[in-house]
């Protein structure tokens, strides 16, 4: 098939969700309950098309001259290659499942049609990012994705927190985008193009320092969208949106756009830029994992975990192996979407009756024992959690293992510092296993902690659990590789033309050991006397009273430590302390910093505004007063007395004469 034959399918692929958006926005009230099915049908068609594109052997490139300024032409180009093909399949597949799920999840929401319209708008913008052939076009869709994320986080616009979170997400993303745009403009200035095909040859004119700067500026876009340190604070708050949205946008697809961007621009990252990226990724990975250790909101745990996993992917890119990052992106999308949908199922089940409004269905303190009530949800959740933790036979193991191997392989280019990254990545994997076990235990095991009077948990309808089940099945190893312990033989690396040159038996063994011990420690803690619920009083954002109590508890803990088991002292004790410190940094540090920064921004704005009013404006007023003063002086001459008029005239004539005579 020649590439021209594919022009139409590519355009159609992009047009489908936009048409759906228009149709649903325009005829939403007419479609009523079937609106979700219409949306899902459009996405299903898109899935078919993207499968066709993926299977066609050639890559497509098309161009459109957007702006002509004499000799200068700004071209927008679309591009479909294997990388985009994989992502197209992924986005469509997850979007389709999430929309089917949403039909049931949102069935009694009066604004359903707006919801599905926004989802289609999101799919349109996301596909735009994937199909972009140049950074400029990608930036355009990048911003549109930001818009649809804003609209969907703030979907329940009557909830002040949701609107606040939407705004926060957009602004933090904008900070990253400003850097992204600066990078694009620098590239345009120095090379004249941002086209992915033309760039590699055009880069030779750039000095390494400049290239590093450009790479880091572009990475800024990823920091915003993929919630990397220090712009990560928006992602947990984005959980205010509907849960299927969290699954699709804030776990599986949009947040992965940053990784996709890095994969696209991997050729221009200099070693210096790579190390910086790997460091940021490492900080994000550990920071996210530690925060997940002590979150109590079912969705926030998953959100922190997403931050941590995105950090891992960024580390992989930083270590020069974007293919493994893409692999983890792919597997993560499936099991994280599955986890979110299962969490949504739990939230849906725990929704209190109208009379009791103070019950929080997302609080894991008041769950427990749901295993027997919702067995399907339980199994889906557990399988996806196991995949996330990296247990063998599941996809997460394969992709994480590939990243660990790549990290060790990168010692060849980066030197021994790469061992640190690899070790920290394995540590983060252990933490992941720990917090996921904690979450599974808190939700599904133990005694039930909700009051039965108002809450009647039940298994979710088929429309909800079937998508969950599909995603759970999608985490099995054989979809990705015939060998459950090695990803190398899988189709993905073949498609991406990646052949890892390091083989190791002990890396998977160590990582499995760390994972299993993470689960083990968590299980021991869960079944022990001081289980997770003992810390249940601690909130994520303590007020001063809770803080005082915490300090007291901490002092008591110090005294008790001598009697604790050894593992508590050497592993979990310090761990939880670091976790607390991290939460402290997050809440008191970064979050407060961001909040303070925004507050200071307003303060600065007010100070400037004050200066504007009294200094700048005051200066102007001083001038006007002095003019008025001069006017008053002049006015004195016009006092109606003939004598003074005469005086003025006389003096003037005298001066005039003087001027004429002298000059």
């Amino acid at each position: 098939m020649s590439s021209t034959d594919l022009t139409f399918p590519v355009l159609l692929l992009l047009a489908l969700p936009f048409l759906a958006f228009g149709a649903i926005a325009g005829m939403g009230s007419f479609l009523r309950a079937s609106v979700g099915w219409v949306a899902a049908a459009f996405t299903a068609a898109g899935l078919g098309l993207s499968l066709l594109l993926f299977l066609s052997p050639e890559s497509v490139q098309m161009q459109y001259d957007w702006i002509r300024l004499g000799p200068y032409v700004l071209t927008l180009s679309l591009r479909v290659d294997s990388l985009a093909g994989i992502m197209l399949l992924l986005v469509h597949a997850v979007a389709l499942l999430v929309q089917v799920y949403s039909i049931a999840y949102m069935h009694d929401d009066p604004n359903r049609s707006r919801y599905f319209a926004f989802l289609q708008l999101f799919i349109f913008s996301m596909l735009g990012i994937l199909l972009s052939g140049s950074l400029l076009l990608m930036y355009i869709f990048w911003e549109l994705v930001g818009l649809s994320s804003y609209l969907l986080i703030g979907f329940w616009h009557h909830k002040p927190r949701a609107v606040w979170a939407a705004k926060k997400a957009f602004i933090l993303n904008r900070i990253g985008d400003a850097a992204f745009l600066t990078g694009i403009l620098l590239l345009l200035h120095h090379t004249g193009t941002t086209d992915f095909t033309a760039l590699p040859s055009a880069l030779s004119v750039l000095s390494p320092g400049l290239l590093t700067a450009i790479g880091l500026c572009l990475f800024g876009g990823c920091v915003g969208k993929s919630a990397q340190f220090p712009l990560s604070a928006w992602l947990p708050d984005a959980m205010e949106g509907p849960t299927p949205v969290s699954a699709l946008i804030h776990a599986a697809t949009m947040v992965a756009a940053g990784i996709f961007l890095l994969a696209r621009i991997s050729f221009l990252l200099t070693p210096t830029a790579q190390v910086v990226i790997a460091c940021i990724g490492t900080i994000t990975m550990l920071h996210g994992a530690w925060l997940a250790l002590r979150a109590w909101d079912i969705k926030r745990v998953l959100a922190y975990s997403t931050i941590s996993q995105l950090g891992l992917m960024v580390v992989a890119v930083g270590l020069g192996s974007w293919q493994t990052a893409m692999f983890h992106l792919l597997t993560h999308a499936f099991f994280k979407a599955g986890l979110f949908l299962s969490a949504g199922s739990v939230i849906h089940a725990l929704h209190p009756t109208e009379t009791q409004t103070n019950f929080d269905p997302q609080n894991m303190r008041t769950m427990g024992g749901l295993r027997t009530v919702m067995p399907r949800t339980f199994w889906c959740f557990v399988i996806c959690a196991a995949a996330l933790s990296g247990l063998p036979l599941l996809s997460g193991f394969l992709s994480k293992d590939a990243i660990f191997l790549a990290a060790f392989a990168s010692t060849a280019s980066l030197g021994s510092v790469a061992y640190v990254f690899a070790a920290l990545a394995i540590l983060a994997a252990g933490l992941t296993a720990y917090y996921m076990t904690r979450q599974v235990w808190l939700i599904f095991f133990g005694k039930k902690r909700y009051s039965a009077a108002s809450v009647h948990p039940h298994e979710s309808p088929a429309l909800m659990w079937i998508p969950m089940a599909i995603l759970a099945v999608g985490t099995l190893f054989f979809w990705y590789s015939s060998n459950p312990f090695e990803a190398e033989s899988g189709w993905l690396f073949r498609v991406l033309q990646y052949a890892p040159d390091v083989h190791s038996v002990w890396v998977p063994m160590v990582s499995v050991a760390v994972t299993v011990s993470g689960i083990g420690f968590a299980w021991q803690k869960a079944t022990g006397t001081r289980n997770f619920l003992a810390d249940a009083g601690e909130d994520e954002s303590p007020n001063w009273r809770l803080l005082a109590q915490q300090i007291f508890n901490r002092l008591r803990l110090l005294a008790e430590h001598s009697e604790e088991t050894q593992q508590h002292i050497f592993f979990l004790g310090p761990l939880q302390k670091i976790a607390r410190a991290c939460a402290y940094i997050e809440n008191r540090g970064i979050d407060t910093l961001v909040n303070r920064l925004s507050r200071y921004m307003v303060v600065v704005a007010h100070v400037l505004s004050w200066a504007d009013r009294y200094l700048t404006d005051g200066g102007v007023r001083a001038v006007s007063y002095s003019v008025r003063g001069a006017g008053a002086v002049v006015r004195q001459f016009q006092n109606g007395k003939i004598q003074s008029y005469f005086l003025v005239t006389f003096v003037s004539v005298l001066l005039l004469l003087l001027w004429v005579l002298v000059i």
Partner: protein
Amino acid sequence: MREHLLTLLIFLPLTGALLALVWPAHRSRNLRLLTLSICLLEVVLSGFLYTNFDFSTGRYPYSELYDWITLPLGSLGTVSIDYALAVDGISLPLVLLATSIMLVGAISSWTITARPKAYFALYLLLSGTVVGCFLAQDFFLFYLFFEFMLLPMYFLIGLWGGPRREYAAIKFFVYTFLGSLLILIVMIGLYLSAIDPLETARAAGWLLAGELPSEGLISKVQQALAQGVLLPEQLVHTFRFEYLADPANYLPDAWLNPISGIFLGETSVRVLAFWLLFAGFAVKLPVVPVHTWLPDAHVEAPTPISVVLAGILLKIGGYGFIRIVHGFFPNEALDSSVPLAILAMISIVYGGFNALAQYDLKKMIAYSSISHMGFVLLGIAALTAEGLNGAIYQMVSHGVLSAMLFLLAGVLSDRTHNRQIDHYRGLIGRMPRYTVLTGIAFFASLGLPGFSGFVGELFTLMGAFRAGQIPIWIPAVSTVGIVLAAAYFLWTLQRMFFGEFWYRKSEDAALLTDLSPREMSLLMVLALATLLLGLFPNTVFSITGPTVQAWLDSLN
């Protein structure tokens, strides 16, 4: 008619203004129909301008030129003021913008009931002078229109404005008037320094009346001028743009001669003149720190006047930079790029911060205007093709968007006479259509791709990045303005429109009704315009591109 289209564009509204003055008082309600039809006709006429525009040369093929005032002053030479009109790629987008925004303003003036005769007469006068500003090719004529614009504006703010209208009107007047004084000084200086070579040839007897100028005549006169052969009585001084822009037309010993360069102490007189002229137009744009008239004028002005003020009048500042300041002082402009770009950066960031601190919706929009017009200055300071085209594009884009924003603010003040942001919450519950259109306007203004704001910012920034003389940190810091724009627009959206409905004066809550069909259609058209401009920016760039390129080539 095509030959006199330009004159028609100016004098149609002026005739309308006279007509309004003699309109029978008991029929004065019909005046709004008259104004509306004249503005509509203006749009159609400027549409002809567009269809007849020659895209390859970047000119409207018919210009108009008449001797207006010729006054021989003996040894002081001859004063020559011409009635010269023309349209090129720089002015055409702004003329189209001006007539369209005037139409929008006329529609939104529908509700004006106080003293309609005076109002519509002044409005039509304003309309004519604004168009005149963009068409004039003679500095004196331009200055005449420029000054005449102040008069209707002063009264429109001072008589139909809000509670502090007198203060705002006088502030507006004093500011702009001081600005135009600076322009006047330089204008006289330029006039004394340059001659009209053709008229001079006539005065010298080298060209007989009725004879067509031969090929090398102009350069012959210019050579004679440079050698000092011409007698003072033979010199015909001129205000014509095309002659002022050519260094060869300057007297060898003139103060503003580009080559000889006379110094006052350490500074060249030309540099001084450049900054005076810059300051004059900077008031209009406005550039921080001479911007403080703008928020007051906007807050007090009635809605249609705010629309016109932000939509067109600010653009005359930017137009003046390109045509006059940078047109006559290109080398000085190039040398001053860095301070100009820094001023632009300060305007962008400072305006953005101030917008963030406002509690009054109109004031917030006014400060956002300052921030957005900073991008115009940034593009102009760059003196690159991208920057200049981007600056013109940004002016058009901001014209549409600010018109939309002030109309939206007007919707609220029409209903409750209260524009305090923190007095409202959850307007989406009461006014869903209003909320959607506000959302579109806000997102378009904060530079969402697909709408026009993005292209303007992209190109002005790109121009600044590509300008060799401007250090890269200036445009890089300017991108903070983009972040700030998101912050103040979305914060306003959050505070006013989302959440549960609440209004401070709960007894007046019933006044908050959704958009009327008139408001709705007007806003929809503007939203469509910004969308189309954003998707197909080449509609503007194809007009401006050739002219800007020719202009840049003439500099080198």
